[in-house]
């Protein structure tokens, strides 16, 4: 399925959408850009951090709410669209529900396990606990001691990049997991964005690297370079300069409009985005030295 079709069919106005579950790696930028091109509205954006992708969706006016632990540009610090939306209501006001990384992960794990909450010791004494209505202190039913209940999140859609995947949605992913496992189980629909399509036999050859049963997957989008400028282990590296350029170019609304015109609205899809980026720059991000995992025998 093309990214255009997947976003059109599976992301509706008003949905809550998880984007950026692997932390700074494997961020589904191409899915985010397609959401912007299709002008989706009133989304609730969910992730611990999304690096600069949330800032782009906020700047495009797609988001009504952000549920996150950190919104910005990891390399550069604050991001300007997020600040403009919070401080000046531009291009539209947004609600911000502040989590911590851990409480975001627990909220999704509660959703994944089908329980209304999970308990934690984190956030006591903070303004996060006071202001986020999804965090509530209560007395432990066994010890009587105080705990914080983190309310379950059940997002409508999770967009999850993987390195390789079969047509049925069975996939392999490697590198740091972040909150991907719980997000995949907690969400009503999962869109997989894969660098490569492989045979089912490849996936079945290593069931421990296969992390999500195909029956939970709504659609598979084959989208090479779908995560640029974030990295995909074994495929391409992080394009640090893209984060610096974005920071420099989006200080003003006009700057963001120009940036969007060039990288989002000015291209039809990820293939055109990569043309825009140029073959030399892509080549410079490619894996320079392979490093294969030691062989593992599943025989019997």
């Amino acid at each position: 399925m093309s990214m255009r079709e997947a976003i059109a069919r599976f992301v509706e106005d008003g949905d809550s959408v998880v984007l950026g579950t692997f932390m700074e790696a494997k961020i589904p930028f191409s899915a985010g850009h397609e959401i912007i091109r299709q002008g989706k509205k009133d989304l609730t954006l969910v992730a611990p951090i999304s690096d600069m992708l949330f800032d782009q969706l906020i700047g495009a006016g797609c988001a009504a709410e952000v549920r996150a632990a950190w919104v910005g540009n990891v390399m550069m610090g604050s991001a300007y669209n997020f600040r403009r939306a919070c401080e000046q209501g531009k291009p539209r006001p947004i609600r911000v529900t502040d989590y911590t990384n851990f409480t975001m992960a627990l909220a999704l794990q509660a959703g994944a396990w089908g329980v209304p909450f999970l308990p934690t010791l984190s956030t006591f004494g903070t303004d996060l606990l006071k202001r986020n209505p999804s965090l509530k202190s209560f007395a432990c039913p066994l010890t009587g001691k105080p705990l914080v209940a983190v309310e379950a999140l059940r997002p409508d859609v999770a967009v999850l990049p993987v390195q390789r995947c079969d047509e049925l949605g069975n996939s392999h992913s490697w590198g740091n997991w972040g909150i991907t496992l719980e997000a995949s189980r907690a969400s009503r629909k999962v869109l997989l964005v894969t660098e490569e399509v492989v045979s089912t036999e490849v996936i079945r050859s290593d069931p421990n690297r296969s992390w999500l049963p195909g029956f939970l997957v709504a659609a598979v989008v084959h989208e090479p370079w779908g995560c640029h400028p974030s990295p995909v282990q074994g495929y391409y590296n992080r394009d640090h300069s893209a984060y610096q350029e974005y920071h420099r170019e989006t200080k003003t609304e006009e700057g963001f409009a120009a940036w969007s015109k060039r990288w989002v609205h000015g291209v039809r899809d990820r293939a055109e985005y990569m043309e825009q980026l140029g073959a030399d720059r892509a080549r410079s991000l490619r894996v320079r030295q392979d490093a294969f995992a030691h062989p593992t025998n599943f025989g019997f």
Partner: protein
Amino acid sequence: MVVAAGREIADGEVVFVGMRLPLLGFLLAKETHAPRAVGLYENGVIRDLPASEFLVTMSDPPNVKGASVCTDMLDVMGLLQQGRVHLGFLGAAEVDRYGNLNSTQVRGNPGWIRLPGSGGACDIASLSQRFVVIVEHERQRLPARVSYCTSPGFGEGGDWRRRTGLPWGGPAAVITTRAILRFDGESGEAYLASVHPGSSVEEVRWQTGWELKVAPDVTQTPPPNQEELRIIRRYDPEGFWTS
């Protein structure tokens, strides 16, 4: 600051490293006095070997390759909540008299300036055995009371943490561009422990937003030696974090 951060790490400790200066401090400690220290990252990476290349983020491919374990956030946060993490490093926009941190919003002119938010900072401040803050030393960044408490220090002082529901932990030090502050075990209040070369007790107190107490044995922070500078240059060759 990098060198001072590295000196806070004891050998064999399990450390929530974070990025930027603390990461460099961790690498420095590993190569000098704490070779068996282990680094945890919120994204799920656990490493006992430095990455082979300069890192901008904890999820950069060089941090994954050669890791001891690549797991998920809940797993490393679970170890943190169990009390298995000795030390965490944190930055902040504001740190106050009791070591509370604000990285969510600060007063602007007019209204509020929105900052990125907690990330894992609140979790690390809540649950590590101790944490160390790294911050630029300017009067408006060290107010008497943070305008928003993102990450708990000693709250209002005394036994506030236990009363509030935090069973252990708290700040051990604030490493600034001018000095090192430490905390009184009873009151939980910060005091001036050492002053960096080039600064003075008076300047530090002037640049602090409350009546900063001064340790009777306040010293000068020992400057980095040649070996330490050499190691820092190796891990941050272009001075991205340290210039």
